[in-house]
């Protein structure tokens, strides 16, 4: 199964932006479960796009003004949800933010 891990945190999580992922990335690469991922610039650098009546509408900022913001993502491939939970719990962001595990739709 493929899962997208959405790394979320509130504004206090920003101070961890430069922390990197400790040994997590190396470990998961060695395990062969990591399929991609990156950290993201903060929400105020976001641009939201919608197409309505053939017109491109742009908004400055994220699509949802919530306290929790997505700060990064990882795509993993592993056996099942239990393994995805175990992988997520090891991610350093799990100790200060939240990680949302979203199953990727099978093509």
């Amino acid at each position: 199964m493929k899962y997208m891990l959405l790394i979320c945190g509130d504004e206090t999580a920003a101070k961890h932006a430069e922390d990197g992922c400790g040994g997590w990335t190396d470990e998961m690469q060695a395990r062969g479960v990591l399929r991609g991922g990156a950290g993201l610039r903060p929400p105020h650098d976001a641009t939201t796009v919608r197409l309505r009546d053939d017109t491109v509408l742009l908004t400055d900022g994220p699509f949802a003004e919530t306290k929790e913001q997505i700060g990064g993502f990882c795509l993993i491939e592993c056996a099942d949800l239990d393994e995805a939970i175990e992988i997520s719990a090891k991610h350093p962001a799990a100790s200060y933010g939240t990680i949302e595990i979203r199953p990727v739709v099978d093509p």
Partner: protein
Amino acid sequence: MIDVETAVATAFREEWGQVVAALIRTTGDWDLAEECAQDAFAQALARWPHDGIPDRPGAWLTTTARRRATDRLRRDAVGAAKLREVAAMTREPEPHPDDSGVPDDRLRLMFTCCHPALALESQVALTLRTLAGLTTTEIARAFLVGESAMAKRLTRAKQKIKHAGVPYRVPPAHLLPERTPAVLAVLYLLFNEGYSATSGAELIRHDLAAEAIRFARVLTQLMPDEPEAAGLLALMLLQHARRDTRVDGAGELVTLAEQDRDRWDHDEIAEGTTVLDGALRRGQPGPYQIQAAIAACHATARDAADTDWTQIAALYEQLEQRTPSPAVALNRAVAVGMADGPAAGLRLVDELATSSSLAGYHLLPATRADLLRRLGRDVEAVEAYREALALAPTGTERRYLRRKLADLGANVTEKS
């Protein structure tokens, strides 16, 4: 000759979970498993009157359901994946439900239904549907929600299991310590839903308590090394033993002290204490074993005066250290009030009242009232009983509090 309908009803109670659980394992399809299990029981009703009741009804039902699932999958097969499933199923050896040592399908099902990635109410509903075979209507009635809401909850839970890749298995040993409590919690919740039922769809809810005990029994057989599973079974048995005396003929609440102990189920008490002793011997106490030990203190006391309140207070203190909660703290205060006198109990209750997480909980003023009454502070007691009366959620409890007020000679009309 045994009545076929009775035989099918018994088989339904005993085998439904096993049949569904085995089919989920082989097909991976929860809906198909339920439908084919239902179909197998319908066939039993139609065929057993002519063919006779099979020696092993469970094996007959599992084989029949499996055959039906194979047919369905063959007929519906559109792609290679489905055909592979069918191939895998036909290779599947016949089940040997009596073999020990083989991981039981029901245990897989129990752990999957109680996976912490599902909301607690979904865990409970799914357990009742797939493991106990209750209909959506029955589950909805037992939890006082609409039928369509319950159907939606069940569908969503099954979809999440499928789409999120919740594994259908008993978790590996290193995950058991964090996963077993969820299974125990669901069973205890089930039991309490049935046990504390004093109104509403009463009959179905009483069935829930018996059903929970049955599952706890299965669980202790399947996990003999888990003393908390045995602790939970013991706790349920010891509480269930008092079921007939908790409410009198007129439906009024009867306190533990006033219950007719001759009418307690002494076989159940004996079984409960035996199960508990076996668990405690392992030397790994946990919250369920401690609660069962408290229940055993009550159940084995000859009469209310014989109750070992010092022991109960000490057990509540242990319980509070492990699972701190305002409700446990309040129970400890009650026990201390009995062991060391009402003044000591009142001190603890008043401490609790200031910490305020019990605000709005009727048992706090009710407990205070009892202690004040025993201290002869009747005016304050009346005031506290009135406060409890305004907060009490059920008619039975309100009537009980009104009787207490009447005993104190207070005017019992409710302020509203």
